């Protein structure tokens, strides 16, 4: 009690944030998980009936003539009966049917594969490119400020916009094919980037990289600038060749920044949504996120919930392994 007395202000200050997070993040996630265990067929029907009943009740209260009212009463009775019957239907109660459906659905399995592939490919590509650019922009180079500004341009560009732009580039009659054609790398037959499979994965990865490169470059530049000059000088005096120096001095010192970059990017990559939705479409290149959405759009809420839950699961597993590793390293260092 004394604690509350002394720290009332602090408590008051923390509560809103965490109340919000619990209310608007944790709770939804939990409901989502709950819904995912309700059979889709039951879910939809139940939905309709409940709203219908509510609607009829509303009409009864607003009905003018008594005869109209009677009609509603009758309808109400029928619907309630239907609901009653539904409660005892084979589909009622907790069921794994959604998950069974998902894992027998080839396009969902493909979605899992695509999601992982895009994450892995994207991360490694972005890591290498961003690192190389950061290295260049931190060494004494004429007009690097200019390049820095250019590289950072896409930083704030809405993903939806970058997606829009990328459609111009990756259309079958788009600018990339045109460039390849002009370079003579391509005959009359254009490449269909959205055909699914690796091509589409590469397309999404490219689009994603274009969008997030600035963030990673900034992060790495900060990391490189955090390395004291003396370290570089020391290794120069030791006469270590540049590449050797990079792998033995720079990279280890960059480790914290790299891990941060990777973890943040990985999470976003798992959740990547607009780009594949617009660039590739759900038909040829489903991702878990877009799959979840398309099921939602088809009003298969429970199925959507299940797929969303799976995505959540994958991310959480990833995050916790990451945290575990960080913890262990702490203990090692300490």
């Amino acid at each position, binding site marked *: 009690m004394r604690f509350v007395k002394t720290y009332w202000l602090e408590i008051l*200050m923390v509560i809103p944030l965490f109340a*919000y997070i619990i209310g608007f993040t944790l709770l939804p*996630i939990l409901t989502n998980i709950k819904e995912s265990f309700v059979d889709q067929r039951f879910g939809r029907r139940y939905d309709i009936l409940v709203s219908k009943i509510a609607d009829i009740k509303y009409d009864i209260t607003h009905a003018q003539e008594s005869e109209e009212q009677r009609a509603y009463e009758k309808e109400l009775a029928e619907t309630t009966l239907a609901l009653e019957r539904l409660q005892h239907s084979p589909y009622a109660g907790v069921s794994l049917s959604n998950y069974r459906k998902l894992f027998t659905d080839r396009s969902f399995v493909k979605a899992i594969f695509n999601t992982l592939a895009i994450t892995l490919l994207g991360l490694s590509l972005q890591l290498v490119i961003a690192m190389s650019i950061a290295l260049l922009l931190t060494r004494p180079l004429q007009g690097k400020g200019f390049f820095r500004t250019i590289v950072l341009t896409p930083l704030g560009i809405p*993903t*939806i*916009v970058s997606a*829009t732009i990328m459609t111009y580039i990756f259309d079958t009659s788009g600018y990339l094919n045109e460039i390849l054609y002009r370079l003579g790398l391509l005959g009359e037959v254009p490449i269909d980037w959205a055909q699914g499979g690796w091509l589409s994965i590469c397309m999404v990865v490219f689009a994603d990289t274009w969008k997030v490169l600035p963030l990673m470059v900034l*992060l790495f530049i900060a990391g490189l600038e*955090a390395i004291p000059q003396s370290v570089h000088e020391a290794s120069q005096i030791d006469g270590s060749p540049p590449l050797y120096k990079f792998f033995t001095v720079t990279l280890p010192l960059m480790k914290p920044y790299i891990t941060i970059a990777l973890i*943040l990017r990985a999470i976003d990559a798992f959740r990547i949504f607009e780009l594949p939705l617009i660039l590739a479409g759900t038909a040829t290149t489903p991702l878990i996120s877009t799959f979840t959405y398309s099921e939602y759009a088809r009003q298969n809420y429970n199925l959507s919930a299940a797929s969303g839950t799976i995505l959540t699961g994958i991310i959480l597993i990833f995050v916790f392994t990451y945290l575990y590793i960080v913890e262990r390293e702490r203990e090692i260092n300490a």
Partner: protein
Amino acid sequence: MPKKLLKSLPFYLYLAVVSVIILYPIFLMVKISASHPADIMKPHKNLLWGPAGITLEHWYNVFTSGLLLPSLFKSLLVATMVMLLAILIAAPAAYVIARLGSPFKYLFIISLFISRTFPEVAIALPVSVVFLHWNLLDTSFGLILAHLIKVLPYVGWILIGTFEAIPLSLEQASSVDGASKIRTLRKVIFPLSLPGIAVAAMLVWLESWNEFTYALYLTVSENTLPLQTYYYLNRGGIFNSAAYATIITLPVIVLTFILQRYITSGMLAGGVK
């Protein structure tokens, strides 16, 4: 000197290539938004500008369509509100967390971190159902609440970093000087954290301005700019969507150029350690 230049030539080449790859798509967007259909609607397109030259007709269409202003207004309102509320909610908590002892602090930061990792698509569905009952679907307020879900943990992190940078002795001095906790917050902590808060605010504004997923789930008829672009993409053909995209992008690019030098790695990293 020329020898040195020769040595750094490959670097310049690399940077040049990267720059082109980064800038060309943006150029395309602007180009298409101001090109004659004849130049775009043909098998082999011009990589630079087509012979028919520049036209502003698409821009004219967009501005006269009557769909731009409402969505522009909604986007502005939502982004601004989200910015203010996010700071108002996250800043105090961030301050307290920044002053906590290590075990609790770590715990809080982790929980913020995890709450940020949940996929929107998983959150948006239940939220849309709840908002339906709360009568918040298709309202700016509802969207604001949704965007807060996305930005709060993020801004929380940034601000924790900001507050950690303020030495504890300042607060103690102030309290010895006879200031109450609240006065200390107002007169000492707040002014000192203002720059950090400002940057965080701008980042939040951007996040909300660009947000798509929640908007898609929670909007019925009153679109935000990104949604409007999306629907144009689905419908009006590529010219208008190009014009729209350009319109959304301009303020953003300006803002990011302002932000560039203020963004610290801590903010990007969101303070994960």
